[in-house]
């Protein structure tokens, strides 16, 4: 086993496995040096947003210090530099998600805006009363509410793939829901509560056999595993930079160019037009047609560093690392009394998200108490109220992992859970 200084440990050749060297990686994340109430920070909320490596933070500063100028429209050095950097990232992202056509990469603010864009623009033009849109019971609000709006406006009907008790999509029911009426199937790659890795390839194939358009909410997928949009053959894929080491304010919508070309823009104004008169306007080509106004180009450029960082580690190594951490967490939590853990137990179908419900301490109290030990976890409905209702709980607590977490973080969590009970004067086993 050789340790390299770039955060990757090369395992013996015969295993072909690379794993992450968290000690080295942690050095790249300045925030992890911070103390919270005197304790080292144990950041277990990466499903909400990830921390940023120094290279991303520095790329952002460096850009503002040396090259900043509005893009696309200036014929001077700074503007040429900004524009190229911006367009280069489009190419990089297209490669990162499997070598798709870069004209299909639209920059938005976040996953939510990407999904709204598909719902507003593609669906509204293509959906009529009686058509069906298939979603799942485990969707994030951002992949539910835009479709609720479309259904209300068009008279389309929403169908939801139910979630089994152990956290899987009920695929038998999915196949029953599918029909000639199905126009859109929009599902999350990974549940942000259950951690379930959904069989999206199978879902896409089935949907396409009915000529339905497929939309993937990749917010929890793209950051954590290699995603090949070309092989998956999804029609749309949405994700957020801030959940994969990048800055806030950048989302991506990938769409097949032939679909994007037929779509109307949702936002109009400077930068996305071809020709404007006082009473008419024509549009620029894709993807610019969908990017109205001054884009958040500085953050786009910083996102580029995040992609480099992830590629250096390799998405496969990231997945292996998270699998190990998740297995360990499940193992430790399962022996904990009066505590329910949600989602699949089979680690092959589970990403690094572990939500649980402590029957003795309310999620918000737990979160506050854990914080006093420096442990950052999220309590609440995780923007998935229908799923909470499915499991009949008002809220729960979620720990989620990324490349800078290790088993010591999980141990800290378990220790924290015990302390919380002591603090509330409950017995701990």
């Amino acid at each position, binding site marked *: 086993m050789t340790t390299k200084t770039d955060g990757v440990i090369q395992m013996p050749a015969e295993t072909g496995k690379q794993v992450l060297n968290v000690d080295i990686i942690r050095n790249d994340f300045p925030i992890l040096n911070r103390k919270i*109430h*005197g*304790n080292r920070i144990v950041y277990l909320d990466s499903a909400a947003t990830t921390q940023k490596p120094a290279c991303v933070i520095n790329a952002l500063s460096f850009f503002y210090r040396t090259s900043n100028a509005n893009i696309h429209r200036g014929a001077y050095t700074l503007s040429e530099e900004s524009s190229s950097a911006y367009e280069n990232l489009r190419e990089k992202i297209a490669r990162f998600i499997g070598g798709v056509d870069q004209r299909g990469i639209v920059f938005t603010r976040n996953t939510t805006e990407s999904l709204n864009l598909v719902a507003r623009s593609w669906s509204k033009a293509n959906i009529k009363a009686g058509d069906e849109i298939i979603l799942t019971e485990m969707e994030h609000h951002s992949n539910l509410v835009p479709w609720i709006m479309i259904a209300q406006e068009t008279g389309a009907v929403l169908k939801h793939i139910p979630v089994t008790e152990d956290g899987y999509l009920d695929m038998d029911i999915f196949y029953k829901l599918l029909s000639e009426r199905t126009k859109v199937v929009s599902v999350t790659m990974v549940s942000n509560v259950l951690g379930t890795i959904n069989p999206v390839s199978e879902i896409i194939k089935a949907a396409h056999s009915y000529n339905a358009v497929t939309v993937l909410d990749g917010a929890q997928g793209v950051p954590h595993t290699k995603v090949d949009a070309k092989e998956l053959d999804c029609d749309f894929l949405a994700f957020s930079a801030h959940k994969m080491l990048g800055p806030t304010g950048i989302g991506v919508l990938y769409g097949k160019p032939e679909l994007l070309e037929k779509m109307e823009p949702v936002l109009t104004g400077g930068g996305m037009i071809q020709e404007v008169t006082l009473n008419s306007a024509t549009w620029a080509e894709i993807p610019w047609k969908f990017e109205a106004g001054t884009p958040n180009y500085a953050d786009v450029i910083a996102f580029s560093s995040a992609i480099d960082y992830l590629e250096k580690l390799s998405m496969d190594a990231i997945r292996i690392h998270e699998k190990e951490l998740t297995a360990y967490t499940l193992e430790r939590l399962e022996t904990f009394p009066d505590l329910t853990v949600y989602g699949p137990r089979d680690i092959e179908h589970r990403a690094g998200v572990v939500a649980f419900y402590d029957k003795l*301490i*309310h*999620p*918000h*109290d737990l979160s*506050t*108490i854990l914080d*006093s*030990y*420096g442990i950052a976890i999220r*309590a*609440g*409905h995780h923007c998935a*109220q229908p799923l*909470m209702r499915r499991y009949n*709980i*008002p*809220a729960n607590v979620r720990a989620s992992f990324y490349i800078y977490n290790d088993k010591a973080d999980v141990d*800290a969590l378990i*220790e*924290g859970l015990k*302390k919380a009970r002591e*603090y*509330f*004067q409950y017995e701990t086993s």
Partner: protein
Amino acid sequence: MKQVKLDDLYRDTILDHYKNPRGRKELDRIDAEHKGYNPLCGDQVTIKAKFTNGYLEDVAVDSQGCAISVASGSMLAELLPGKSLKEIQQITEAFREMMHGKKLPDDMDIGDLDALEGVKKYHSRIKCALIPWITLNDLIKARQEKETLVSPSLPE
């Protein structure tokens, strides 16, 4: 791991109210009932009230939620019975202001409520402390609106 430093938040008084909520009881007469709900964290509270001559004679509080919201509801149930609607309004207002960092009037009796003062430092938890009070306030408002329809001049 370092010692918890949360004693400003979860004081013993709070834990006591949390574990033995005072308002969880039946009333012999229910004049008004109101449900409060915070969908963002799932906290729920049901308040039932019995009024006599413009006074809150008794109140039952049934909370499902975190220690802060349950304790706050329990303190409400302990403190308010026998108070006039005007007094209740003043206490509610004073408590709300305390949560936003203001000092209480010297002469106001707020029972165990001062144990909740530490909550003000935890922005995301202030709503938890306020929810029973907001619910009671809504109950009183709804009742007044209804009664105004019947007899426009109501004793305060």
